[in-house]
């Protein structure tokens, strides 16, 4: 199956792209994507702890199962609103 993966903010900078299509095996989960990114760029794994993931605009876990056409995103720590 094919999913779209989106990278924002620091992830965008780290991976040098904002979005890509990924071909995944049946039964793939969010973890499948994280492992694939780690192979490409090992340093990204240290940020996984502080990051969240989303599937189709909803927060997801590493175990969330994926389906054809899903939109997955890596969500760095949110800093919208204001600091004050």
């Amino acid at each position, binding site marked *: 199956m094919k999913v779209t993966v*989106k990278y924002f*903010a*620091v992830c965008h900078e780290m991976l040098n792209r904002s979005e890509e299509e990924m071909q995944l095996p049946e039964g793939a989960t969010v973890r499948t994507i994280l492992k694939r990114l780690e192979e490409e760029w090992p340093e990204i794994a240290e940020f996984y702890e502080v990051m969240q993931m989303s599937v189709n*605009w*909803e927060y997801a876990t590493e175990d969330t199962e994926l389906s054809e056409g899903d939109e997955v995103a890596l969500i*760095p720590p*949110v*800093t919208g609103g*204001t*600091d004050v």
Partner: protein
Amino acid sequence: MFKITDKIITGSEVREAVAAPDAGAIVLFLGTVRNNTDGKAVQHLEYEAYPPMAEKKMAEIAQEISDKWGIHRVAMIHRVGKLEIGEVSVAVAVASPHRKDGFKACKYAMNRLKQIVPIWKREVWTDGEAGWVKPDAVFFET
């Protein structure tokens, strides 16, 4: 109205969105770009968002406020792109029959916005350095 925009925010968008003849109290919060963060001089800010998810999460916060206080008129807008000192990054308006609940709901909206709405801030300091910040800390210098 739950919106990500790259245009200047005046506050009147959200205020007009919540106005109603039976609501006597409007509480409006504006977050503006400060000239410093913990004493470090800021040159400008850059905000990035995941718009569809951000707008969905804003609507969820409004639903939480409706459930908690029975207040149905909430609007939020957040700007993205480059922002200069003094410009508004975020505006939240709440219209309510009672002002006490309006203050509570507006404060709640801001707190939740920082927690769950996917928007990120990159600070560019006057020393030429820059970094993505996370709550209360620089997250990743670039």
